[in-house]
């Protein structure tokens, strides 16, 4: 070797030279390993200078994109992690509704369709699947890492279309998601500020319309956002060490705040509402809702209502200032927020401020709490890389959150880069083979499948408008004919959250509660409970859902329902997202003796990052090689379809390592 191995990189020492090419089938199947072969690297240092193999590249892309493709693997091999990351940081963001070229604006302004949750799913899929833009095909959407990080953020800073009002406002949800996209490589403090004032979050956690106390009517400021912005979006419930482990006092965790802090925050977070509540010159703050809200308000930050509107009769006992700044008799004076070493003003919010100024103080107070780095960093690691990161890994990332090297706190770009280039992310699978990894989220299984199999939208019709816009009975046009990049369809794109007919029970901004589809702390029953291993994604995989997801995959692979070579049914109004099995036909029997080895090895690279165990490989080949020309003219396609299902449904695939 000749190169010295630094003591800190102890996992580099465990590399044993097992030639990567030596994946020969062994005589006795029982002796085949159920774990991936360790890979041989000739460079022990500088993991961040890789990738050195296709497997390295694919593993990285599984963590940094919505699923590796052959093209992406080759490209990453050619330019290396650093250059790839730089490309990604520079790539044009794919927005849902922000900017002229955003998908929903094209749908609405050019196609004259109405914006609904269905085409909000399409907009999301365009970012997640990538590829040519449906309006301007020469524009290729490549911002995979930004989209993946935004999705991870959407599972921490949760809003959901399961809220009735938000279900009726896809625009507000799309604009909210654009905040996550726009700030994915920005600063967490900016993200917090924009999320807080977004109407979607205002509706979801009740800060919108929250007002100072009115003790005569026994009205108090609502605590929902005050509680969740602390509990879920920043510091969590217990004090953390820099490595994410809980601090203990007398063997018990230490709470980050007492109830009175939440009450005080609730009083600060008052006075904000839709931007147009008082546009008619009257005070409509109380009960300001759809009848006062202009259509553009869903895409506008909330406004502070603390100035008496003009021409308004004066009430003797109540001002039309809805923000609690400590000056009104029902207000809370001198609010004590979070106290921690270095907190500005000791966390004491002095009276007499403005709504915006007080909000900034409160969010700064939260943002600068020492918990934020480990609390957020650990969850981002869990969303991208592994469910049980070592405390040392968490600490390395949290340290970058605290200070990115240029004295900036909260720099998400540096945090993301640190997460992905850390030795534990790049090599953890080999060091902790039994416990490293995470259960793939069902939605990302879907996007991986579609990306890797070059899925396009197929079939569908153009339906003319019925009636005149603005009159009863009007039905807007829909345009789904010859739209390969509109990722739509009842069986596929629009029902990703379906639990009965298709779907994987998951979609962006679609969780049942503010606690996302699963909690970061969830521990599945059985062995992982005994060993104290977290598996957040297991929480949504109940007995029915786990079978249902497998059935959805079955329908898209072995059952072959969604193949681009199929004829379109006459009544197929909207089409569906479909793949092309035929692309892999050439590999199905091309190995010596007509075996399916090349097919399995290709799928190993494309789907399993080269980590398919010898046992699994042999198991698949034994069966696939029984499919021959006597099984029909499409026997090679049958091999591909079987391989796809058995791989995508398998435990070895479902755990991203």
């Amino acid at each position, binding site marked *: 070797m000749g190169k010295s191995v630094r003591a800190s990189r102890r996992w580099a020492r465990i590399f044993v030279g097992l030639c990567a090419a030596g994946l020969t089938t062994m005589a006795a199947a029982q002796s085949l390993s*159920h*774990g991936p072969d360790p890979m041989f690297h000739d460079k022990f240092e500088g993991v961040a200078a890789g990738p050195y193999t296709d497997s390295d590249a694919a593993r990285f892309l599984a963590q940094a994109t919505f699923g590796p493709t052959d093209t992406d693997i080759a490209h990453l091999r050619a330019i290396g992690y650093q250059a790839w990351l730089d490309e990604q940081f520079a790539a044009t963001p794919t927005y849902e509704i922000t900017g002229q070229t955003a998908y929903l604006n094209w749908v609405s302004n050019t196609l004259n369709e109405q914006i609904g949750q269905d085409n909000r799913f399409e907009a999301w899929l365009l970012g997640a699947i990538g590829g040519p833009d449906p309006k301007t095909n020469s524009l290729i959407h490549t911002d995979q890492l930004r989209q993946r990080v935004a999705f991870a953020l959407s599972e921490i800073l949760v809003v959901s279309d399961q809220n009735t009002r938000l279900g009726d406002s896809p625009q507000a949800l799309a604009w909210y998601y654009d905040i996550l996209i726009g700030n994915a490589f920005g600063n967490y403090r900016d993200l917090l500020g924009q999320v807080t004032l977004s109407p979607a979050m205002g509706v979801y956690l*009740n800060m919108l319309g929250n007002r100072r106390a009115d*003790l*005569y*009517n*026994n*009205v*108090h*400021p*609502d605590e*929902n956002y005050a*509680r969740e912005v602390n509990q879920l979006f920043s510091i969590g*419930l217990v004090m953390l060490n820099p490595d994410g482990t809980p601090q203990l006092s007398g063997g018990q965790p230490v*709470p980050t705040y*007492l*109830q*009175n802090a939440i*009450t005080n925050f609730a009083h600060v977070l008052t006075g904000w509402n839709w931007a147009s509540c008082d546009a008619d010159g009257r005070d409509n703050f*109380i*009960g300001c809702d759809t009848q006062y809200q202009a259509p553009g308000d869903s895409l506008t930050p909330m406004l502070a209502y603390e100035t008496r509107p003009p021409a308004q009769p004066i009430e003797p006992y109540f001002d039309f200032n809805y923000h609690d700044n400590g000056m009104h008799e029902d207000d809370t004076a001198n609010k004590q927020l979070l106290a921690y070493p270095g907190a500005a003003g000791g966390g004491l919010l002095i009276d007499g401020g403005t709504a915006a100024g007080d909000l900034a103080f409160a969010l700064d107070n939260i943002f600068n709490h020492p918990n934020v780095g480990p609390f957020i960093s650990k969850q981002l690691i869990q969303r991208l890389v592994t469910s049980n990161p070592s405390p040392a890994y968490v600490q390395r990332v949290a340290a970058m959150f605290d200070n990115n090297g240029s004295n900036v706190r909260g720099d998400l770009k540096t945090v993301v880069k640190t997460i992905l280039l850390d030795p534990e992310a790049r090599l953890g699978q080999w060091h902790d*083979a*039994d*416990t*490293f*990894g*995470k*259960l793939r989220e069902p939605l990302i299984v879907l996007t991986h499948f579609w990306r890797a199999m070059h899925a396009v939208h197929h079939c569908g019709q153009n339906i003319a408008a019925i009636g005149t816009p603005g009159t009863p009975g009007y039905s807007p046009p829909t345009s789904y004919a010859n739209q390969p990049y509109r990722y739509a369809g009842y069986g596929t794109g629009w029902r990703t959250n379906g*639990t009965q007919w298709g779907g994987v029970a998951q979609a962006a901004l679609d969780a049942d*509660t*503010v*606690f996302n589809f699963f909690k970061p702390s969830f521990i599945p029953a059985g*062995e*992982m*409970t*005994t*060993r104290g291993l977290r*598996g957040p994604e297991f929480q949504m*995989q*109940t*007995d*029915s*859902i*786990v*079978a*249902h997801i*497998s*059935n959805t995959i079955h329908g898209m692979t*072995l059952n072959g329902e969604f193949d681009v070579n199929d004829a379109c049914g006459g009544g197929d109004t909207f089409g569906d997202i479909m793949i092309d099995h035929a692309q892999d036909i050439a590999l199905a029997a091309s190995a010596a003796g007509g075996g399916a080895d090349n097919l399995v090895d290709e799928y190993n690279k494309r789907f399993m990052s080269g980590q398919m165990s010898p046992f699994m490989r042999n*198991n698949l080949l*034994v*069966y696939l090689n029984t499919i021959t020309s006597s099984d029909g003219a499409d026997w090679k396609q049958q091999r591909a379809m*079987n391989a796809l*299902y*058995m791989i995508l*449904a398998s*435990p*070895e695939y*479902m*755990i991203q390592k």
Partner: protein
Amino acid sequence: MRPDRRKFIQQTIRAALGGVGACSALGHMHLLQAAARTNYAFGDYKALVCVYLYGGNDSFNTIVPISGAARTAYDDTRPTGTGLIGLTPGSLNSLTHPTGSNAGSPGDNSQYGLHQNMPELATLFNTGKAAIVANVGTLVRPTSQQDAWDAMYNGSSFPLPPQLFSHSDQTAYWQSSPPSNAPLSGWGGRIADLLTSANPAGVPIMTSVGGDDIFTRGQTAAGYAMNPGSATTLNFLEWGGANGSCAPGGGWDPNQIAAFCNLFAAGTQANALERTFAASMNHSIGTAGVINAAIAAANADATAAGIPGKFPNPGGYDLDAQLCTVAQLIWAAANNQGGLNGLHRQVFFVNAGGFDTHSDQLAQHPDLLTLLSKSLKGFYDALALVGLQDKATAFTASDFGRTMTGNNGGTDHGWGSHHFVVGGAVQGGKFYGNGIGATPITDPQDGLVYGTVMPSLFDPATTWGTPSPNKNDAGDGYGRIIPTTAVDQYAGTLAKWFGLTDGDITTIFPSLANFNTKYLGFV
């Protein structure tokens, strides 16, 4: 020298309660397998059904005073008007209940009714098939206003359930009632664990329909989480002719079935998460057939086929569809149908969401209560149709109650709340509670009574930082009512009906020892 068997089980159950290191849990699990369990044997069948209301139901607008001192307090605390949340007495469904100091009276010289949208549940109550358990909530030990105030605002060491107004923590506490903050089992699961000997192996003792949570998490008892209507089977095994099974040799192409199933062979995977995923799939495959056979038998039986008709939308996903499936499974188990032969005790979990009414409460809450009322009535009627109404007891539970005071048209997270228990075995038509034995206090100034079965709803304006004169109020001005009945007492009463011994009940509800009354008498 071997410690005795009961200590093994106790230690293991305590390990399951969490707050103990993984190492000792592992050690005790081995001991549990070695030790024999308490041997329960029942000749009859019973089902316990947890109806969980996610978000924290506003029970103060569900069970509402019509007249009397409580109505006066309600009017004062919850005025009616724009952006306010009070309900008028004329809108309520009257309840017929004992009064004065008679057993089963709310104890506050007031008359109560149910929300306008709950006539069905009112009928159940008035015909003695439903009871109200008042002011239940998470408590470690009896808690006075001073205790709560000191702990919440002055950081005293008085033990309160951790994170009192946090959804996730209170949900965990309600469903597991542990002494720690990180439960590894629910109390439904612990009950099922203890009753393993009363049931046959290989059939699910616990079933969650429409969602899964920690209530039905045990250490050894088998649970099954399904969508309403039917258990989802694996199409690959069904359509491959393998009858939904991975048994070797099955299917039209046994090699194909084997190729898939080999990858799921139990315990063979080289990664703990892979093994867990494989176990999930195997469990799903193994149990779906049993469940579906039971539901099919219910649909085929002349009488039981009428069960779905008792519910508004049995084909959907909501609470009523979930309870429909539960009723069918209860029928099958009680009649040894499908694969559910020989089951004597079963625990079910169903749920409804949307109760976190921070705003628009008067617009949102009624529909939620309609669903709850029709679902519980439908469940009772469905079981009565097949003569099993005495065999199942359904009980509601929720993260917490809500604040008596409002905020811009809604309410915030509270603490104590009232709950319903429904079934033929229930001593219905009565109010139960005050299990901690709080002494009623009559305020000399206003003559209002505090601390009876139903808590006082009075919330006079107090100076900021001063506890409310209403001793039921935790004192921070939001009208958060301190529970006078602990979840443990509520759960212990149900466990007693279910057939557990006093000793086992004390083991699985450690905090119960802090309360003088174990059983509240409603069933």
